[in-house]
């Protein structure tokens, strides 16, 4: 335990899909606010909306396999003061319905909460069609939109409750695969905040989603190499917590980003823009590099595409060397 109230990364950790935390959070949000409603495009169990549907059947809308309709109905619900959570797989929503999100939610400024499950290559055997990698990039460029990628199921629950109170359009990406739970109910979360999970002096590692766990693992290994890495968990990619990130970078002088998606336009893109504008230093972006995923087992794919602690360790040596 430290002041972030994290569990020991080397201890025995429970693993749970991040989307499960969303399901619990949505039911709680529904209990707290009668205006919280939900709609799904034929993936109610898979996106974990079933808890809410069972508790509040009159506040749940089954849209069918129609993602364009899903978000646009959400816009109409929000027009009447509802706080609609709309879910599907990220490949389809926001993959298929970007323009409806742009016009009827962002430009129209309605607080629709878009939940994209099954993001990243860790979707596994379903293959590239279902492994959404571009969602952060396409949502991040939309004015008014908030983009969130929680690191584990405990944080996803907090994020869901925070989204229900937020008056802006929000997008949250969730992973399918069980992810080690290393945060606790006392770990802080607020939309727009990044958190220093591990203090260090030699390199800043900015991680989002389940990749933060990989960064935590890498820190232990780097310590043995006499590199003291600072890990910043960035659950909100937009608006980006520039203050926390820049404070760290001014100290360490170099940065690694890691995400389970396209580095171009994703967290890596966002941080490259920030550093380019404010404080240019050596930057190494880990993520998918202009390519699609493929079928395989989740861990196997993360390793194959270089999205793990081992690759963070290599990148750290590389980027620290570039400071010289």
């Amino acid at each position: 335990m430290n002041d972030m109230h994290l569990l020991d990364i080397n201890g025995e950790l429970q693993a749970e899909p991040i989307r499960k935390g969303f399901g619990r959070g949505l039911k709680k949000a529904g209990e707290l606010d009668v205006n919280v409603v939900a709609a799904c495009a034929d993936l109610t169990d898979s996106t974990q909306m079933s808890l809410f549907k069972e508790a509040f059947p009159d506040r749940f809308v089954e849209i069918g396999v129609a993602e364009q309709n899903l978000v646009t109905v959400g816009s109409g619900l929000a027009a009447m003061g509802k706080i609609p959570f709309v879910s599907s797989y990220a490949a389809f929503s926001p993959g298929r319905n970007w323009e409806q999100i742009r016009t009827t939610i962002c430009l129209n400024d309605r607080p629709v909460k878009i939940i994209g499950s099954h993001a990243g290559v860790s979707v596994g055997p379903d293959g590239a069609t279902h492994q959404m990698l571009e969602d952060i990039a396409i949502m991040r460029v939309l004015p008014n939109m908030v983009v969130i990628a929680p690191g584990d199921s405990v944080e996803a629950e907090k994020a869901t409750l925070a989204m229900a109170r937020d008056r802006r359009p929000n997008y949250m990406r969730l992973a399918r695969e069980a992810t080690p739970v290393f945060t606790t109910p006392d770990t802080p979360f607020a939309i727009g905040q990044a958190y220093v999970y591990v203090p260090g002096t030699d390199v800043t590692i900015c991680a989002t989603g389940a990749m933060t766990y990989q960064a935590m693992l890498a820190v232990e290994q780097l310590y043995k190499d006499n590199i003291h890495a600072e890990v910043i968990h960035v659950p909100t990619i937009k608006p980006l917590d520039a203050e926390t990130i820049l404070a760290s970078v001014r100290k360490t002088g170099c940065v690694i980003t890691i995400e389970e998606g396209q580095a171009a336009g994703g967290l890596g893109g966002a941080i490259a823009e920030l550093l380019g504008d404010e404080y240019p230093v050596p930057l190494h972006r880990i993520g998918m590099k202009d390519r699609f995923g493929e079928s395989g087992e989740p861990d196997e794919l993360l390793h194959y595409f270089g999205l793990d602690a081992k690759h963070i360790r290599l990148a750290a040596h590389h980027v620290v060397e570039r400071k010289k």
Partner: protein
Amino acid sequence: MLEHAGSGHSAGPLGLADIFTALYFDVLKHDPKRPDWEDRDVLLLSNGHCVPVRYATMAEAGYFPTKELLTLRKLGSRLQGHPERTRLPGLENTSGPLGCGLSQAAGVALAMRMDNQLHRRVYVVTGDGELDEGNNWEAIMLIAKYNLNTITAIVDRNNIQIDGPTESVMPLEDLKKKWEAFGWHTIEIDGNDIEAVIDACVMAKAVTEKPVVILAYTIPGKGVDFMESDFHWHGAPPNHEQAVKALHELRTLGGKIRSEHE
């Protein structure tokens, strides 16, 4: 307005003038002085490019001064080329990209049902060419599934779209049978007959077992002989000379009466 703006759509708004007049001056429960009135009916415009007729009708109804109409499409105007809800009180949705109005209507009607506000009605005006968009048919299915019978859809069946007649660009017929096959009650009217529009909206309230669509057959460019039914006027504004001629025709009913404006 359109001459002053130097761009915009002429034919659709003229063809919809009778429908918007009927809506704002008879059908809709609304209050121009309280655009957020919580018991108001909701009018969604799906074919956002026809918004000039909505602006003109709203101004006449008292939402804002008619002189503001000349700011259409100008920098800083509340009257954007395509409607933006956040800029002008009284607009219910932002639209332009086609095929979204019916989905928004579904969301609005679902929320009203959840809140037991069944005294409120939802009107959605769509174009006919816009029915090419698949998003519409997703919404048409959903509205029928939940029998959202507080919704009245009005299709501006003017038979033109940008590339030509609808039946050559992408045939829509048999449009009535299509809506019926999707579970809707249909009413066909002359959309340029104000009384017929009002009657159909009253009739729509009486039908509760299904949602209702009014297929309103209109003449694009209605009232201006050189614009009527010519698809080239879909997306074009008149020049000064054409605007003078068009306004003369509209104000004198084609020379049949004297106008107070001339």
